[in-house]
Every structure is written in structure tokens, then in C-alpha cells.
């Protein structure tokens, strides 16, 4: 199975980067080959241009940027969703990973 690239976006990329660690752990435990990374909203364009992203997840605190990202991703066909609030707060890597994998369609 090819590597799945999951991109997380929040305001400064700080709290999402904590989630990345937890998600990576969950992925390793399940034997899923993934590349998960977090960026700040202002860096998102660079990452989208340089990386082959399979799915983009937004932190709930920046869910008002959804429209902006939808416009950016429309022609790329990258699925986009806001991370569930409770999972985000509890840093539940497993659930968020499941959310991402479901969006990719695996």
C-alpha cells in the first residue's frame, strides 16, 4: 500500500502537531503506512504545492477557514473535513486517523 499523506492545519500548527504524534502512533500500531504532518494556516499553500496530500483536516478552532480551503482544494480533488471537537480536545489520535482514512476511502 502506498503512503498516505495526511495534512493537518490549525492557526499556528502547534496544537495539531501534538495530534500528529498521537495519530502517527495509532497508525504504526495498526500497520498503516502514513505521512502525517501539521502546518499553520499561512504555510498551508507551500505544503499543498510541494507535497502530494491525500487528505486535509482542519482544527476546529479554524473551521471558519473551511470555505477558503475548499476553494483551494476544489480542482485538486483533495477531501477536506474539520476534525471532531471532542477528539481534538482529547488528542484522540486513533479516531482522527480513522476520520482521515475514511475520507481517503480506505
Amino acid at each position, binding site marked *: 500500500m502506498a503512503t498516505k499523506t495526511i495534512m493537518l492545519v490549525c492557526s499556528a500548527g502547534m496544537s495539531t502537531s501534538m495530534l500528529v504524534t498521537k495519530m502517527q502512533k495509532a497508525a504504526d500500531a495498526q500497520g498503516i503506512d502514513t505521512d502525517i504532518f501539521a502546518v499553520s494556516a499561512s504555510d498551508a499553500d507551500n505544503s499543498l504545492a510541494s507535497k502530494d496530500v491525500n487528505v486535509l483536516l482542519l482544527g476546529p478552532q479554524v473551521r*471558519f477557514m473551511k470555505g477558503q480551503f475548499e476553494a483551494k482544494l476544489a480542482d485538486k480533488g483533495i477531501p477536506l473535513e474539520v476534525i471532531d471537537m471532542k477528539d481534538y480536545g*482529547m488528542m484522540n489520535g486513533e479516531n482522527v486517523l480513522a476520520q482521515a482514512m475514511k475520507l481517503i476511502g480506505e
Partner: protein
Amino acid sequence: MHALTAWLEKFLLPIAGKIGNQKHLVALRDAFIGTMPVTMAGSMAVLLNAIIRDLPTQFIDGYDANTIPVFKEIIGINGYVWNGTLAIAGLMFAFSLGYNIARAYGVNDLAGGLVSVGALIQGIAFSAPATVNLEPGQLGEKATELLTNAGSVISQTEVLDTATGNMKLVEQVTNNAWGWLKLDHLNGNAFFTAMILGFVAVIIFAKLMNRNITIKMPEQVPPAVSKAFAAIIPALVALYAVGMFNYFFTRFTDVLFIDWVQKTIADPLLELSQGFGAVMIITVFIQLFWFFGIHGMNVLAPALEGIWGVAQIKNVNLFNEGGVEMVKEHGYLWVRGSFDAFSMFGGSGGTIVLIIAILIFSKRADYKTIGKLSLGPGIFNINEPVMFGLPIVLNPIMFVPFLLAPIVTTAIGYFATINGWVDPVSQQVVWVTPPLLLSFLATGADWRAPVVSLICMIVAFIIYAPFVIAANKMEEQ
């Protein structure tokens, strides 16, 4: 309570959505964020000087860092770093803004940044005027000849004698050295002009690009070359439009646009930001947005960075010029970093004390788990776990303390600063700096600042604690 949150949600969420999707506001916010790597380097230089040069003088008589080896060198290096960063913060911002606007329109971003810089620079002072008044006849013939040859203008003028209050005749030597860019037009003073002219110029540029009013090169030409050619006509029109504006503005008003903006827009707006009401309004809105799970600081960044952030850069520069006394005299008392220093400990809402209150008082398993999970990030002012995990978001019990605590702590910090009990924030410190240390560094190492922050934290604790206990009892019932 439910009706209130429902009403607020209906009112606030669309605002957040509008700001978050308004591409010009997004570009403005990203432009400020984009300058951070360089402004932070400059702030580091000022902060280092504050610690090794200015702080010890408070405790050691006759201390002069400029006589101490190594320190002397570090101070010298800091000077160069400052020259290349904060001294020209407005210029950097102009580029960042043009780049981000062009990006938002999906056109050549490098050209957009350059057009914006061009639009700012064309309207600033290019000459360094200097005037000396002399008693008539004091200047010898030879000196007169030399000065005139060097480009000075010598004239006899009547000026007001401040000593006697009468007019008196003087010989005035005016030298207008050309070929100098005025630094005061490129630093924090340039922000508002860069915003106005940058937006105008780059929007013109981007619209022309999007309408394909460009030079089209044949297909064999390398893409990099044709990209640059395509930007020529739009950039030309944009810069000419701003150029004409600058020409006629100065012709009819006799002042440079940038000086006019400073006097009629920037100064009054910054003055307004110093009022208690303005500080409270922004505080309340940050909290309200966060209560609905939206990053309040981020949504309000165009105002926070555009007004209080500009005030902060001025303070940093004033500190570099003359230390804390200069800031107190000519600077702004309440700036962007003041919020972080006195009320945002642990993140918006001062949630680190909520976490402490939970760890002390709460017996609820869910609260205790989230308290432990949130403590680590909370120390670095990251509070999403407690915000979404507890949750605070849309939690009716937490609404009151979450709104009230920052209002009270901001008020304490505000009045402590206004009354001079603590030095105003004059340094730019990364927001992930742990509380107490943050306010110490932000005020240029004023030991009273962490004391005030600690008082704020205790007060916030007293506000949060009863609600934590109440949440505990609700669980029991």
C-alpha cells in the same frame, strides 16, 4: 443561557466565516504573520540588549556594558541585526503584503510583492533636509562659496527668536542632500501607508493580470521568462496609478501622503487603541469567538496585528533608541504583547489557572484526565486540549469565568501599566513563552511584570475555582 448562546452563535459565526474567507483580510493577516521571522530576529536583538545592557544598570551602579568585552561585541552585532529588521519593518511588511495579496488573487506573487514595495517607496522622502541659522555676516565669503558649491541654499530669513519672542533676521543655510531614504518612513511608521498603497497597487496589478492584459510571449519562450514579461504591463499600470496619486496629492496638499496618513489616520487610530474601552471590546470578542470554538486571536488578527501590533513595533524601536524611559515617554502603553503578558497565560482565557484549579479541586474523572493532558501544552500557552476536551466550548458552566477572567486580568494589567506600576511591553516575545517569563521578557526585564501577572493569575484562579467546584457537584448529583 441557551437562548443567549444560540443568539451569539448566530451572530458571531458568520462574522468569523466572513473574516476567514475575505481574501483581503486573510492576506493582511498572513502579511503580518509573514514578517515574523525577521521581526522576531530584530526583537531578539533588542531583548538581548535589554538584558545585558539595560537590566544590570538597575542593580549595579556605574555599570556600562559598552566597556565590557564580549558584551560590547554582542551589542554591536545586535545593532546590525536591528538595522536589517525592525528599522525597516514597514518595508518588509510592504513586500509581505503585496506577496500575499497577489497570492490571494492567484497571480505572480513575487511581482506582487515588488509592486507593493515600489508603491511604498515612490512616495517617501528622498532627501535629507538640514537647516542651520546663523547671525548675518557670521559666515565668511569662502565658507559661503564652498557651501553653495556643495548644493546648499543660503538665504536671509526672518525667524522667531524663542528667547525674546521677537522676529529676527538670520542667515539661513539649507542643505537638501538628495539620495537618502528616510528611515522613519520605512519602519513602523510605514505600516498604514503600506496597507493603503499596497492594497491599491497590487489589486490593480492582480486584476489586470487576471483579465490577461499582459504581454504574451510565443510558446518557445521559457516559462520563467514569459512569466516575468506577463507582469510588465500590470505592474507598470499599478505603479503609474500610485505615482500619479502621489504627485497630485503632494502638489495639492504640499505634504507627502505618508506623512498625511501618519497624522490623520495612524496616530489617531493608535491613540484610540489605548483607551480602556477599545482594549475591553477586543478582549470580549476574543473570548466570545473562542467560546464558540473559533480561534479568536486568529479571526481578529487584522485588528490586533494591524493596530496593537503596529504600536508594539513602535515600542520595540523606541526601546532600542532610548530604553524604557523613551517608551514610557513616547510609546504606547498597551500593545499586542500586553494581552499575552497579563491575561492570556496558558492561552486565551488564562486557562492555565483553570487547569490548576481542576487538578486541585475536581474529583471528576473526565476533568482530571483532561487537566493532566492539558497541563503540558498549557505551560506553553497552547490550550486547544482543554478548550475542546473539557470542553470550554459551548459549556454553559464555563461561559461566565471564561469571559470574566480575561476581562478582570486585562483590566488589572491595563491599570497597572497606565499607572506606571509596571513598564509597558516593549519587546516582542514568542507567544509560546511560558507565563511569568513572558511578561518579564516582554517588558524588557521589569521584575514587577511577573508580579503583576502572578496577581492576575491568582485573581483568575479565584474566578475559575467556584465553577470548577460547581461542575464537580453537578457530576455527583
